[in-house]
């Protein structure tokens, strides 16, 4: 899947803008999101951080159309009618591979209607190659490590040509080395394919390393909106990166102390 190839088909133009207005979500009496507004320009890499239980995962699930919103609306791009299912792909915290399908067949799930098409298999293999697991195409998922499974899930998301890719802490369960490796993979794919990325994470360092912009969610609404204007690739431990990370952590922790 090259940039040229995706650009040929205008319908599949990468990167879509997201517009959420006055989003409300309650579970019973508990109000998780209240009147949240969010605009994400096409192709932006947005990280959503916050303490656990702040509603960041809920926001992602509403945008992806996995949960029903109590009130408010989410729209993509210019056309208001388009459905989340056709535009958004989600990478979950768990890889969620089908254990009874070989690795390649799992990636092919991402092809959707193009599955079984002339070059469907070739595209799936290409996606698998881009995450470095081409040689495991014929294996069962149960024989892969946690990080490899998550890479297969990533290949599955990539092959579906997402216009918006939402990550729900997909690296949360991985060890430190695998995390860094996955972050690089993620950034490379985003730079190459140009989709809009929505990363939900509680790891501030991860957000600073990857995102164009970081929003902090507190009490069901956005409390800070920070533009990250640092050159890529960002080196871990670089002064500006560390300073920004420190600043956000201070904010999050200071806020907790004040409460």
């Amino acid at each position: 899947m090259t940039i040229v190839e995706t650009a040929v088909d205008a319908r599949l133009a990468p990167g879509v803008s997201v517009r959420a207005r006055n989003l409300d979500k309650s579970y019973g009496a508990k109000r998780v999101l209240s009147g949240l507004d969010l605009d994400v320009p096409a192709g932006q890499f947005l990280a959503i951080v916050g303490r656990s239980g702040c509603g960041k995962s809920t926001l992602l699930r509403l945008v992806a159309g996995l949960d029903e919103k109590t009130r408010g609306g989410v729209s993509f791009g210019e056309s208001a009618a388009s459905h989340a299912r056709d535009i958004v792909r989600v990478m979950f915290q768990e890889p969620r591979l089908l254990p009874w399908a070989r690795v390649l067949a799992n990636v092919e799930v991402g092809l959707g209607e193009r599955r079984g098409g002339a070059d469907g298999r070739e595209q799936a293999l290409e996606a698998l190659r881009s995450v470095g697991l081409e040689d495991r195409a014929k294996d069962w998922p149960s024989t892969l490590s946690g990080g490899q499974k998550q890479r297969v899930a990533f290949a599955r998301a990539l092959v579906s040509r997402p216009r918006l890719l939402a990550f729900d802490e997909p690296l949360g369960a991985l060890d430190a080395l695998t995390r860094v490796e996955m972050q690089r993979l993620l950034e490379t794919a985003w730079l190459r394919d140009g989709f809009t990325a929505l990363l939900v994470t509680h790891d501030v360092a991860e957000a600073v390393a990857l995102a164009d912009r970081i929003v902090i969610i507190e009490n069901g609404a956005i409390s800070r909106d920070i533009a990250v204007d640092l050159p890529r690739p960002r080196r871990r431990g670089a002064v500006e990166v560390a300073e920004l990370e420190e600043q956000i952590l201070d904010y999050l922790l200071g806020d907790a102390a004040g409460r």
Partner: protein
Amino acid sequence: MKRAMTHPQEASISSGGSARGGVSRRIRWRAILESRASAWIVPLSIVAIWQAACALELTPSTLLPSPLAVIDAAWRLTLTGELPRNLGVSFLRAIGGLAIGGAIGFIFGLANGVSKISEVLADSTLQMARNIPHLALIPLVILWLGIDEEAKLFLVSIGVFFPIYVNTLHGVRSVDPQLVEMARSYGMPSRELFRQVVLPGALPSIFVGLRYALGVMWLTLIVAETIAAQSGLGYMAMQAREFMQVDVVVLSILIYALLGKLADSVARVLERVCLSWHPAFQRERGGAS
């Protein structure tokens, strides 16, 4: 592997060849006992003891024929064509009943697992009917259907229906909801969702139901054939009892045992083929990497 590595050490400590020989002999015995063929050691020993008891006339031959006499009876009945015919009749009844009852149970299980409406309408009725011992229906079935093929097919079908139904339903219900959510978020249409996610996810449980159903299948058939039939293995055994042909009676019982084992083996092979993705079966093949 580990055992072999500790070998030289042991030999040097005990400084004699005898300990070493003892260990390797133990390993050889272990290898023999762990092989597949050793499953037959116990049944064959029983037959051998039985033959010896008969040869020494410890048991009256009018009540318990020797294994050789049973084999002789099998040969005799094979020559007259009686055994193959009855065996064939019973086999067809078993398979027919399994196919009909199993298919209906499978369909109901899937429908009630997938559709809430279907479940509300059908499940509680089926759960009530499940608690009636199906063999209690024999008098009614004889009144309704006589002692023809329909009666046997009906009883076997009812017998295998419930284990397949209950386990299919359970299997469909226990499919990982996270996988279903993933498939839906990729826009998988319902038909594909069923084929790629729900059915494979339910399969291990369905196999449990199938193996249980096979046991019920033989039990039902034997009882039905013993009470009301004009052919089949059960009928053959009852006829033999009338004429005091103990060897034929024992032969029928042994054939039941073999058929039961055969059915179970077929189910195991199917399981291994269909569930080859399952970690449990991958370990058995010894190829986890």
